[in-house]
C-alpha cells in the first residue's frame, strides 16, 4: 500500500522536532533517574500546548480528528529526545479503549479531558510480563475493583486507568479514577524512572464497566494500536543514536584516520540505518492500515513493534560501542537511550509476545 505524507503531516513532524529539540534537557532526564514517582512536567506541558493528546481523538470528543499516522509522527519526534514521560502513549491507549468500548455518556464525559491533556490516562491490562493477563487477580463486582496491578506504565501520575479485571470468571474492561478513594500507588524505582511506573493497589475502588462481553479482543485492539505508537517512539530513539554514532565516527580520529573509515564501525552504522528503515516502513504501513481500516493491521502492528525493538536495541547498544569509553560514562547521553530502549522493549509485551501474535495472525490467514 504505502502513502506519502501530506504537507500538513510533514509540518506536524517538523514543528514537533523543533519544539522538542528546544525543550530537551538531558540534565533533567538524568535528575529524574534518581527521583522515582516524578516525571518531566515541562515535557508534558509541551505536549498539551502543542495539542498532541488531542490528535487521534475525534472532533466530537474534543479532539483534532487526526489518526494513528499523526500519532506516530509525533511519537517519533518524542523518541528522538528520549522524552521524559510516557503519557502521550498511555493517554492515547486509554482514550482508544474508551472510544472502542465505552458508551456515549462515558465517552462524552471522559475523552474530552484526555484530549485537552487536563487528565492523563493509562492502561492496566497486565499483571506480569504478558501484556494482557488472561486470569486477572483483580476482581470487579459491578461497581468496584479490588486487587493489585503491577508496574503500570505512567501509573505514578495518571488520573485514570482502563483496567482488565474479572467478574464472575469473565473478563471485564473497567474505567477507574486513580485519584479517588481506595487507590494507592507504590512508585517503582526503575532504571528508566521518567517512565513513571507504579504498582496500583485497589481496595473497593469505584470502577465503571466499559466492556464485559468482548474485553479480550478490545484489549488487543488497543494494544495493537499502542504498539505502533511505541514502535514510532523506538524508531525516533534509534535514529537519534544512529546520528550520534555517525557524527562521532566522522570526527573521532584513531590510528591516523576518522574511525568511520574502518568497516567494523562504518558497517555497524550502515546496519543501524538498515534496521531503522525497516522499522520506519512497518510503522508507516501499520498506522496507515489502522487509519484506513485495511486488512492485516494486526500482523503489521506486530511487525512494527518487533522492528522498533530491534532497531532501538541495536542502535543504542552499538552507538555506545562506537563511542568507546566515552559512551559508557554518566556524562554521555547515550545511556538514556540504552535505558529507554530496554524499558520500551519490556512494556506492552516483549518481542516474544509480538512474534507469537504476528504468527498467529498469519496462521489464521493460511
Amino acid at each position, binding site marked *: 500500500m504505502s502513502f506519502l505524507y501530506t504537507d500538513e503531516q510533514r509540518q506536524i513532524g517538523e514543528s514537533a522536532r523543533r519544539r522538542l529539540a528546544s525543550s530537551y534537557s538531558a540534565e533533567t532526564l538524568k535528575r529524574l533517574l534518581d527521583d522515582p514517582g516524578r516525571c518531566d512536567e515541562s515535557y508534558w506541558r509541551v505536549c498539551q500546548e502543542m495539542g498532541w493528546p488531542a490528535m487521534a481523538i475525534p472532533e466530537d470528543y474534543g479532539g483534532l480528528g487526526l489518526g494513528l499516522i499523526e500519532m506516530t509522527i509525533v511519537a517519533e519526534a518524542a523518541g528522538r529526545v528520549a522524552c521524559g514521560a510516557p503519557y502521550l502513549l498511555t493517554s492515547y491507549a486509554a482514550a482508544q479503549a474508551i472510544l472502542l468500548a465505552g458508551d456515549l455518556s462515558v465517552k462524552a464525559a471522559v475523552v474530552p479531558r484526555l484530549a485537552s491533556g487536563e487528565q492523563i490516562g493509562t492502561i492496566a491490562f497486565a499483571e506480569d510480563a504478558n501484556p494482557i493477563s488472561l486470569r486477572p487477580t483483580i476482581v470487579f463486582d459491578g461497581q468496584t475493583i479490588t486487587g493489585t496491578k503491577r508496574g503500570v506504565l505512567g501509573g505514578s501520575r495518571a488520573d485514570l486507568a482502563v483496567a482488565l479485571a474479572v467478574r464472575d470468571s469473565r473478563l471485564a474492561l473497567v474505567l477507574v479514577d486513580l485519584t479517588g478513594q481506595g487507590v494507592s500507588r507504590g512508585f517503582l524505582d526503575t532504571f528508566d524512572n521518567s517512565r513513571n511506573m507504579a504498582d496500583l493497589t485497589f481496595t473497593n475502588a469505584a470502577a465503571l464497566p466499559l466492556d464485559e462481553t468482548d474485553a479480550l479482543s478490545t484489549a488487543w485492539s488497543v494494544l495493537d494500536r499502542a504498539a505502533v505508537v511505541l514502535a514510532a517512539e523506538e524508531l525516533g530513539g534509534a535514529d537519534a543514536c544512529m546520528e550520534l554514532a555517525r557524527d562521532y565516527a566522522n570526527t573521532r580520529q584513531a590510528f591516523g584516520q576518522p574511525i568511520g573509515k574502518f568497516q567494523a564501525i*562504518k558497517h555497524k552504522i*550502515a546496519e543501524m540505518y538498515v534496521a531503522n528503515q525497516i522499522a520506519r516502513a512497518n510503522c508507516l504501513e501499520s498506522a496507515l492500515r489502522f487509519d484506513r481500516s485495511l486488512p492485516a493491521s494486526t500482523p503489521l502492528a506486530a511487525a512494527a513493534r518487533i522492528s522498533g525493538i530491534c532497531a532501538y536495541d541495536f542502535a543504542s547498544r552499538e552507538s555506545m560501542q562506537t563511542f568507546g569509553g566515552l559512551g559508557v560514562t554518566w556524562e554521555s547521553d547515550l545511556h538514556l537511550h540504552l535505558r529507554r530502549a530496554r524499558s520500551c522493549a519490556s512494556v506492552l509485551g516483549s518481542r516474544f509476545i509480538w512474534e507469537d501474535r504476528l504468527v498467529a495472525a498469519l496462521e489464521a490467514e493460511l
Partner: protein
Amino acid sequence: MTAVLLTELEAYRSTARAWLESNADRYGAAARKGLSERDDLELGRRWLALKYDSGYSGISWPRQFGGEGLSALHQAVFAEEELPFGFPTQYFQISLGQPVPIMMHYAPAEVIRQFVVPALRGEQIWCQLFSEPAAGSDLAGLRTRATRHGDEWIISGQKLWTSWAQYSDLAVIIARNDPGLPKHRGLTYFWLDMRTPGITVRPVKLADGSADVNEVFLDEVRVPDSQRLGKVGDGFAVAMHTLVIERYAAGADETGYGPELGSFLRLAREARLGSGRALDDGRVRASVAEAYRLQQALMTVRSKAFLEAANGSEPGPEGAIHKLVSVRSRQKLSELAVDLLGPEAARIPDATAKSDWIASWLAAPTGRIAGGTDEILLNTIAEKILGLPQDYRPDKGIPFDSIR
C-alpha cells in the same frame, strides 16, 4: 495529477494481469517443468515474441526504437505482475536489463534500431563482459586490455561470471585502454558480436550445480572504433550507469528471489518437532516473524518509491537496502526450511530457487555476491547515504601499472 496516473496504472495492472493469467498454462512454471535448458530457452524466446506482439515488451522504451513509450511505472507494474507466474525470462533479464538500455543511451540511432527489436523478441541475447578473475567488487581493477590500431581496437584478456554468455549473440565490454592512468580512468566501453574470432566461452559450474555464468576468453578480438560507447577513458562512468540500473532491477522481489513466506508457513505447519507442530515452536515462530517484518518493510519501501515517482519526486535512498535485506533473509529462512524438511532435505533439488527451499538455500550465497556484495552495499549505504568516509584505498590516484 498523481491520482489520475495512479488510477491509470491500476487499470493497466488489471489488464496486464488478465493477459498474463491467460498465458500462464502455456508459458508459466507448470509448462516449464521437466524441460531441458535448451527447450526452456526456446520456450522463453516464444514467450518474448508473444509479449512483443502483444505490446508488453520494452514498455518504458521509446516507440521509435520498438518500445511502448509508457512510463517506468508501467514497466514496474508489469514486472511485478509477471514475476509470480515463473515465466522463462531469466535468459533475457541481463540482456534487456542493462546492455540494451545502455546501447539506447550511447549508440547511434541506426545501430539502436538494428538491435532493439531482435533483443525484445528474444531472437538475440546480450551479455555484459564486466567482472574478471581479479576484478569483482573492485571492477576498476580489471586487466583486459584494449589497444588501438587505427580505426580498430584489439581486445585481449579474460572475463568471469558473465551471465548467459553461452547463449549470447552480442555483448558490451569494458577494457583498459591506458594502464598508465589511475585505475578508474583509462577504461573504455564497447559493444561487440560474440561470434567475432578470438572469443571462447566456457560455462562455470556453480556450487548449486547451475551453470548460468561463464568465463570468456578474448584473444586479440578486433572491434571497430565505431563500436565504442562513450569517450575513450570514460568506460567506468558508463559501467557505473549500468550497475545503477542493475541494482534497481535486482531489488524487485521481497523474498530475495526465494520461495514465498506462505510456503515456509505451510511447511512448518506440516513438519513435526518433537511431539508438536514445528510452527508451534518459538524458534520457528521467531524466524517467521523476522522474515515477515523484513519482507513487509521492503514492500512498503518499494510502494513508497513507486508513489514518489508517480508524484514526480525522487524516490528516497532507502531503496538501497532492498537486495541486502531480502537476500540475507532468504538465506536464513532457506536454511531453516531445509532443517524442517527432515529426510526429504537430502534429495537433489529439481526445481528453481523460487519454488524449492533446497535450491534456494544452495543458490543463496550467489545472491549475496552477485550484483554487489553485502559488504559493498553496506559501504554504499554508509558513504552515499550517511556521509561516512571512504575506506582507506592504497591504490587511489596511482597509475594502474604501478599498483602492487
